[in-house]
């Protein structure tokens, strides 16, 4: 083992390899060292050295989502991409950009804005979260109702594999079907197949104008959720082009809806009028400040809590909201959720009683999975995380996922145990 540390030290320099401290622990597992390679080649070499020494590697970007995933099976080395933070190219005429994994989302976005462009994505904690971490966790926000998620925006990737291979896939052009689509495979793979060192994205123009409308319905019971869901579907079923359709609800919040339009001023105004006509049964309210970042508030608060991500069919949103209400009333647990109209949302349930939280999670997960949806835990007390797979079920595709993992990481050194089914 000492040989591995000295090899790593020689590779990255003593100043970029240090002993891990409690702040580096992941779900209570304290790795031995933290390494910060300076470029993609060094990342690949670190992987090769660590693999040869059977050191489990936990990749880390801005460390904003380290709690996402099952507790690691082991942790020898945290590999931080902090130093891979360059924006390699902004080909604004082609509306593409190449960026290293450790660059923060905000820094990337600010650079793109200089030419009136953006990555049409609104991840959590953009000032600290890195491109690599956002990709690995497949985080996306309200903009996806119009622009899709990362899988629809990423066009190229460079991956470092455990054997030290650096492999590229995709490219710098928006339209490209040459070879397998590894950018999509790596997106959301939680660093279990390789370390993303660089990514290429297609970009969109920064909108000329943006307008938001918010509505509430007076009833917090089943009919309130159902009528809000009906309004969400109606907005989706007309030919407007919103760039955000978001439903918020909670144990002390009657359902609220936010709708956003972007484009020309006349286009926005016309669509707002149409929305107001459609929502005549709801009450138009002042939009809360920073409402399009509402889901990030689910992580704040001092109460013991769990935060989950759920996905479902858009038409099931009302029924699901009602199910949460029933379960939390029965278990006396306060809750709040923020859901996007495409059928993805985040839920916070509070309560000091772990068995009650676990009960709620299991009930909600079972319900969603039986309707083709999913329910994953993003943050929870360790005693809950250790009792279940935080991701939920992968169905009959799990053996195939294991087999992909075995091909890319045959000795299982990358983020062991943290992904679905213990991958």
């Amino acid at each position, binding site marked *: 083992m000492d040989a591995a540390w000295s090899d790593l030290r020689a590779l990255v320099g003593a100043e970029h390899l240090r002993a891990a401290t409690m702040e580096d622990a992941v779900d209570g597992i304290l790795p031995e060292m933290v390494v910060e390679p300076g470029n993609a080649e060094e990342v690949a070499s670190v992987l090769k050295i660590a693999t040869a020494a059977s050191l489990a590697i936990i990749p880390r970007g801005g460390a904003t989502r380290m709690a996402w995933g099952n507790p690691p099976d082991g942790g020898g080395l945290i590999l931080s991409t902090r130093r891979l933070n360059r924006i390699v190219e902004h080909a604004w*005429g082609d509306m593409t950009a190449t960026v290293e994994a450790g660059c923060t989302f905000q820094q990337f976005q600010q650079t793109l804005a200089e030419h009136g462009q953006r990555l049409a994505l609104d991840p959590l904690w953009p000032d600290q979260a890195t491109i690599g971490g956002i990709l690995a966790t497949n985080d996306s926000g309200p903009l996806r109702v119009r622009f899709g998620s990362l899988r629809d925006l990423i066009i190229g990737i460079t991956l470092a594999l455990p054997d030290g291979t650096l492999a590229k896939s995709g490219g710098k052009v928006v339209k490209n079907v040459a070879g397998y689509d590894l950018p999509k495979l790596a997106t959301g793979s939680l660093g279990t197949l390789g370390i993303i060192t660089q990514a290429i994205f297609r970009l969109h123009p920064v909108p000329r104008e943006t307008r938001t409308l918010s509505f509430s319905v007076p009833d917090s019971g089943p009919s309130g959720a159902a009528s809000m869901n009906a309004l969400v579907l109606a907005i989706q*079923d007309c030919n407007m082009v919103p760039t955000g359709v978001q439903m918020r609800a909670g144990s002390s919040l009657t359902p609220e809806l936010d709708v956003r339009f972007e484009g020309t001023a006349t286009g926005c105004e016309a669509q707002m009028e149409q929305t107001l006509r459609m929502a005549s049964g709801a009450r138009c309210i002042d939009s809360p400040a920073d409402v399009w970042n509402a889901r990030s508030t689910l992580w704040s608060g001092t109460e013991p809590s769990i935060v989950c991500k759920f996905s479902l069919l858009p038409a099931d949103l009302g029924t699901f909201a009602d199910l949460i209400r029933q379960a939390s009333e029965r278990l006396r647990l306060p809750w709040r959720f923020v859901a996007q109209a495409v059928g993805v949302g985040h839920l916070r349930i509070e309560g000091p009683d772990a068995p009650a939280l676990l009960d709620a999670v299991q009930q909600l997960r079972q319900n969603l999975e039986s309707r083709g949806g999913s329910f994953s835990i993003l943050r929870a007390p360790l005693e809950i995380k250790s009792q279940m797979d935080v991701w939920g079920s992968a169905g009959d595709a799990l053996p195939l996922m294991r087999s*992909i993992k075995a091909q890319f990481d045959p000795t299982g050194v990358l983020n062991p145990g943290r992904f679905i*089914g213990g991958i």
Partner: protein
Amino acid sequence: MGLLILDDPITRWPDHPMPLEARTLEQFRAVVGRGLITEASQLHTYECDGLTNFRVLPQAVLLPTSTAEVQAIVRICQREKIPFVARGSGTGLSGGALPVDRGVVISLARMNRILEVDLPNARVVVEPGVINSDVTQRVAPHGYFYAPDPSSQSVCSIGGNVAENSGGAHCLKYGFTTTHVLGLEVVLPDGSIVHLGSRAVDCPGYDLPGIFVGSEGTLGIATKIILRILKKPAVIQTLLAAFNSTTEAGAAVSGIIGAGMLPAAIEMMDNLAIQAAEASVHAGYPNCGGLLLVEIDGPAAEVAYLIDEVSRICTQCGAWEIRVAQSDAERAVVWKGRKAAFAAMGRISPNYIVQDGVIPRTALPMVLSEIERMSAAEGLRVANVFHAGDGNLHPLVLYDRRIAGQEERAMELSINILRLCVKCGGSITGEHGVGEEKKMMMGEMFAEPDLETMQLVRCAFDPEHLSNPGKVFPRTRLCAERTGPYQPHPLEVSGVAQFF
């Protein structure tokens, strides 16, 4: 490194493959009954896809009607180690559905039912043999459409679209097949059935639909596909602008994108392509050096505003005629010429090769003048039809097979155009796929470690290389080991070809 066919650019594949054992044929017949074709005269229908200069006679063609039948066929293939090639409508342009030596073809044409239409959730579940435009036709009365629109959409199948990750003119705004496939039921090469993705978005685990779509039939056979449909825009308008040259038209494209607009489509045709389209379908295009079709869709107020802006940009860039098609009928006429452009080449040339390269859009003027130079140097005409918004070029190299040596020169020219695309940071294929035709070009776009890494996926899905073997990659990776030793291509063994 690439594989050089020594014999002839028109590959002479064996005409008489080894016959399947009678026992195996009986097993196949027990599964599909009359859906088994073994007569040579009928097999010839399946010897190629839309890329007709590669032909291989399959040993048998099977026409299953259900997932269970596909599974039973694949199980027999797995047991007997018979390679299989899935086929949709056979309209592919890269030889993806070209049969393989000693293999069988599994045609999904009879699995053509639309199984479910779920309008509240905007989902449609189909079998793979469903024709692309039938999906839109089915949901159009409710104001919905299925976005991917390859030019062959009236005949190509969703299963084939899934294999090739098909695009079309409107993918500039709406994305490709992969954007619209949420889940699949797949028969894996070992005969097991798996469900990739789900009806809901963001299924936990690896993005298996993401890797399966566009894998060109090498990872298994899709037997059910969950599609996402979209609401038809309130207003669609198509602007047609005539320029003196493709350079001027290209400048207008840059202007439109630079102004922060994302049209539904931007298509460009050069004079030769316009002539062919006119001769073929009489679309009423102006006789000009560069024609631009710009389609803007969305809310009425937005479209009206943007179409004015596009019109102004085109005029500034030298457009001398601008028309705006507003009704569905007018738009259909405008698009007719563009969609028929490939087939129209038959009007102005006995033979032609369709190419499918992609370049960063800003490289367009340089690439066009270079293509013009290369075309003059070879003494062969090249017509250009592009999806200009996303840099996807379809150069059509015109030639006459009857003139000795011209076909070889045409192939060489079309390959060199692809090399030019790669040199500019582009791709060898934007929507037609690699298939058989361009697998030797993969090595020019990707380094060996890149290709080896991609094939790790193949090893996870199909370690025995039974599903459409020999396609996409120039060399096959051995799956048993982490880094497999070099495996000679069967053609190399037989002395038909050698690596260069």
